């Protein structure tokens, strides 16, 4: 059992196998993305009921919440892939980790921009030093640090190791940062417990939101896979199988 897992792990770790496998998987991933995201966005932006307090402006949530979620996961995934690459010297993990950084940073930026657009009608200001805004901003900075470090190295091997170490350190710090920022922001809040008036999110809103969230995750995986495939081809351009592939096409 363990041996088979190990075997598959090594197999998957080789660039060629990854390339072949993802060739088969990619249409499915794209399919899921389209099937979830297109109706999700249409339903969310067009058909979900208007919110009684915020009117239509809340609809940006259907982009914003998934982007935030994916950005966080992207960072964790980058660190995990980096750790695997660092410990077991798995090339494929290094490539995936490298590709996660700019994509994750884009999602974090998307989250910040949509948050800011949402903030204007809701709070009357483009920016608030709110705990979640601030910690998303710090996450974006962490991504930028990783990207900057990666670009600074000439050798791809050292770059992969250095960024892996940095993203692991970042992941250890992420909860501390998030916690401290949230705690810092409570300055602006009272300890009073808010009286809640029950009533849940109607299904017409929940369904598109969930569709958007899953759709964004699939979108993320499509982007990572496409970017990694390009990276694989570039790194392995001298190998036999890539040459054959180019000949065939």
């Amino acid at each position, binding site marked *: 059992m363990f041996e088979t897992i190990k075997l598959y792990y090594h197999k998957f770790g080789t660039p060629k196998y990854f390339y072949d496998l993802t060739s088969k998987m990619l249409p499915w991933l794209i399919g899921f993305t389209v099937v979830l995201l297109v109706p999700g966005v249409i339903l969310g932006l067009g058909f979900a009921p208007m919110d009684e307090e915020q009117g239509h402006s809340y609809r940006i949530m259907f982009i914003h919440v998934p982007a935030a979620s994916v950005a966080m996961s992207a960072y964790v995934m980058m660190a995990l892939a980096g750790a695997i690459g660092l410990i077991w010297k798995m090339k494929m993990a290094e490539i995936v980790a490298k590709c996660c950084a700019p994509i994750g940073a884009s999602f974090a930026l998307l989250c910040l921009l949509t948050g800011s657009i949402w903030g204007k009608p809701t709070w009357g200001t483009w920016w608030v030093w709110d705990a979640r805004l601030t910690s998303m901003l710090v996450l974006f900075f962490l991504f930028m640090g990783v990207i900057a470090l990666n670009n600074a190295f000439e*050798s*791809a*091997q050292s770059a992969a190791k250095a960024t892996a170490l940095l993203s692991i350190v970042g992941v250890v710090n992420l909860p501390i940062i998030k916690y401290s920022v949230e705690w810092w922001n409570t300055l602006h809040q009272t300890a009073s417990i808010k009286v809640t008036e029950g009533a849940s999110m109607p299904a017409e809103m929940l369904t598109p939101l969930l569709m958007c969230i899953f759709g964004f995750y699939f979108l993320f995986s499509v982007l990572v896979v496409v970017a990694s495939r390009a990276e694989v081809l570039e*790194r392995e351009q*001298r190998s036999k199988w890539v040459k054959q592939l180019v000949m065939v096409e």
Partner: protein
Amino acid sequence: MLETGVESQLISPLLEAKSLLCERDDRVLFEELSFAITAGDITQVEGPNGSGKTTLIRILCGLSSAYEGQLSWRGRPMSQCREQFCQQHIYFGHLTGIKAPLSAEENLRWMAQCRGSSLKGLALDNAVDQALAKVGLHGFEDAPVYTLSAGQKRRVALARLFLEPVALWVLDEPFTAIDRNGVAELESIIEQHAKQGGAVVLTTHHELSIDPSHLKVIRLGDAREGL
């Protein structure tokens, strides 16, 4: 001095490399490189510029882990005996590691302490003085190193070789910035070290005047090992 090495030299090699492979950003520097360094050997790594001489030296001394294949020290895999290996070899690279604001004596002392030397206090002071005398720096012990010339700085660094008996010397271009007399001296020092049962691995562009029958060569560049 190195009597401990004498017995082992007949039995097992000090440093052994089996099918080393080093890739630098998709370029194979060397592959299937196997050799053994036994006590008494002087081994020269040869090859044109860019053939990976320094890379191989850095792999051998443990500074770089960018290789595949096995390296072992006295029959044990390198990963299991890093501390022993570090204590029983000296690496001497392009950069000397000499701190300019410190005096020659202070430099050697921290280097010894950093190696975890068993010498302490007076014994260490004596060893330092003797080592400096050996490289012809008697009288310069207390001068800050920035007052010395480039060649003298190089000699301060070389004095490190004489602090304590060490089984293996790994020297990368040791003859840089040393005058003609110094080169001859250094060559005889290297030969003497080998005679006493030590081993030396070195790279150099300089034509060695060491008896070729004593000299082993690892040739890089044509991708196969010489030996």
